[in-house]
């Protein structure tokens, strides 16, 4: 298995930090690789090997933590050796739940400077795909998690949560929330999309304040991107609904923890549609304050994956730059800045294989290195994510055939 994975890695700029997780069951991978049965897939245990969505986060001490979903369970484990081996998994929800399996949904994990581990996830609570977001934390180094609690008392529907720690370590959460749908219906008014809700915890994740909406009528089916311009000042990137029908991207910047700023449009793509794109943006707020955003659109103005930046706090954005090879269906882009290096990764597909490509910018997004393909797989896979231990950028990617891999990205400035 390890040899197979290594054989698939391409490019001299890549250093492989891990093979598929030895603590899992390699034989089940081999069986799965021949199983294209879709929903009837035989892999139905809560192990990392069976995970469809895996989210990474590094602790301050360099420990890699993963949260994943499999068989209705959100599990957490950690690795002290760059993902080669993992601790026994701890179930966040001991009883299986109908976890949100939307393409852009995944469990979230964040770790503060004192080692508290925060996890959030969403479930489907009915057959109409209304969701409910839960959060929990571990205050004992990941040995146990407090019982998951709803992130809001509102009973309507919440999905696509995101959690992040501001520069002072305060826990911020945002999600898409349909709390205004029922009141609109009572007024016989059409309700579009969902609201962008947010809250903070002032007690290190033991509880959260009652939430409010930053903006209403955003797109209801795409992930959020979060960054910070300072303590108590989140920036949230999201797919908005402009004019009731156009699903283009926007950012809001908070003036203070409780005052979201205006909706600032990233690009006029003019994706006038009533479909759910299921592809949200990725945002990186660089240490110098530049907003870097990447996204997918199928708009009338442009189609594909694009990158743009703002050097004036979101008031204006640069012209979008197309990312990837158009004939290879680029998708699922993700951004991360590490020590002045801005990394961008995305997926491509040629009809047989999915590849993950990365490129890096050392001048705040003005110019980029040549794209390098760093991994590939011949079956289904999770979105490629980037994470860092504060020194190095890593690609974190779960594939059905090869399992989990963490790949250190090296470049020549």
């Amino acid at each position, binding site marked *: 298995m390890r040899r197979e994975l290594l054989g698939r890695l391409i490019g001299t700029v890549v250093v492989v930090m891990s093979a598929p997780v030895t603590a899992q069951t390699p034989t089940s991978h081999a069986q799965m690789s021949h199983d294209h*049965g879709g*929903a009837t897939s035989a892999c139905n245990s809560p192990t990392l090997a069976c995970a469809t969505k895996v989210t990474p986060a590094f602790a301050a001490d360099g420990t890699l933590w993963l949260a994943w979903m499999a068989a209705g369970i959100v599990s957490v484990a950690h690795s002290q050796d760059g993902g080669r081996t993992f601790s026994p998994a701890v179930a966040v929800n001991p009883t299986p739940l109908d976890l949100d*399996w939307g393409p852009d949904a995944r469990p979230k994990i964040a770790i503060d400077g004192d080692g508290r581990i925060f996890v959030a996830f969403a479930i489907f609570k009915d*057959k109409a795909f209304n969701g409910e977001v839960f959060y929990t934390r571990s205050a004992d180094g990941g040995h146990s998690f407090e019982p998951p609690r709803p992130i809001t008392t509102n009973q309507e529907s919440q999905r696509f949560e995101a959690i992040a720690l501001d520069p002072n370590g305060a826990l911020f959460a945002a999600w898409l929330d349909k709390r205004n749908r029922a009141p609109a219906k009572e007024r016989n008014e059409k309700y579009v999309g969902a609201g962008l809700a947010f809250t903070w915890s002032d007690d290190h994740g033991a509880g959260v304040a009652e939430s409010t909406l930053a903006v209403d009528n955003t797109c209801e089916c795409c992930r959020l991107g979060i960054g910070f311009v300072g303590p108590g000042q989140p920036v949230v990137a999201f797919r908005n609904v402009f004019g009731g029908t156009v699903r283009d991207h926007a950012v809001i910047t908070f003036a203070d923890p409780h005052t979201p700023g205006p909706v600032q449009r990233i690009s006029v793509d003019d994706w006038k549609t009533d*479909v759910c794109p299921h*592809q949200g943006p990725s945002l990186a707020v660089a240490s110098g304050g530049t907003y870097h955003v990447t996204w997918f659109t*199928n708009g009338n103005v442009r189609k594909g994956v694009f990158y743009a930046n703002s050097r004036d706090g979101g008031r204006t954005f640069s012209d979008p730059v197309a990312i990837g090879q158009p004939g290879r*269906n680029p998708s699922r882009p993700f951004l991360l800045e590490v020590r002045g290096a801005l990394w961008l990764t995305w997926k491509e597909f040629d009809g047989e294989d999915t590849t993950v490509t990365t490129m890096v910018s050392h001048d705040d997004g003005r110019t980029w290195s040549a794209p390098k393909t760093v991994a590939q797989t011949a079956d*289904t896979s999770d979105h490629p994510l980037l994470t860092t231990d504060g020194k190095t950028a890593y690609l974190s990617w779960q594939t*059905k055939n090869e399992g989990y891999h963490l790949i250190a990205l090296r470049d020549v400035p």
Partner: protein
Amino acid sequence: MKRRTMRRWILPVILAAAALALPDAIGSASPGELHEFVRGSWKAIRHAQAGRPVVVHFWGVTCGPCQVEMPRWDKLLHERADLELVTVNADLVPDDPGAVSNMLAETGLAGAENWMFNDGFVERLRFEIDPQWQGEIPLTVLIGRDGGTTTIEGVVEPDVIRTWLDGQVQASK
């Protein structure tokens, strides 16, 4: 009307499947059942309809607009004898066949020719249909008498289909 549509389609599809030596799953469905849409199914559908216009509608149980649109297809089937409709459940995540069948029944389309994506690596199914398609639904592909295709993202207005069908009638003269 629904049964007419089914009978006119099931035999050519089965024959095409046999001719192309496609996976057994395609030919295994009986009228009223879901056909498994696997690699090669798109080619089979195209082959089976060669020379005749057909509307292929991709939808999902997780798709809100689809719940509005599906009953419209049932009405159009009753209205237009020249409408040949194939539906394909193409949820972004493989779905429960029971839920798919229930929604088809609730929207009056249980008797149409219905397919359901059945490949855990759904990207390659979409790639065979349209390399640029990233899975947004609803999506409708109009395949003309000459084999030319028109792809419509989002909910289709019935008048668009009526106009297209009228054009196909003209093209046959």
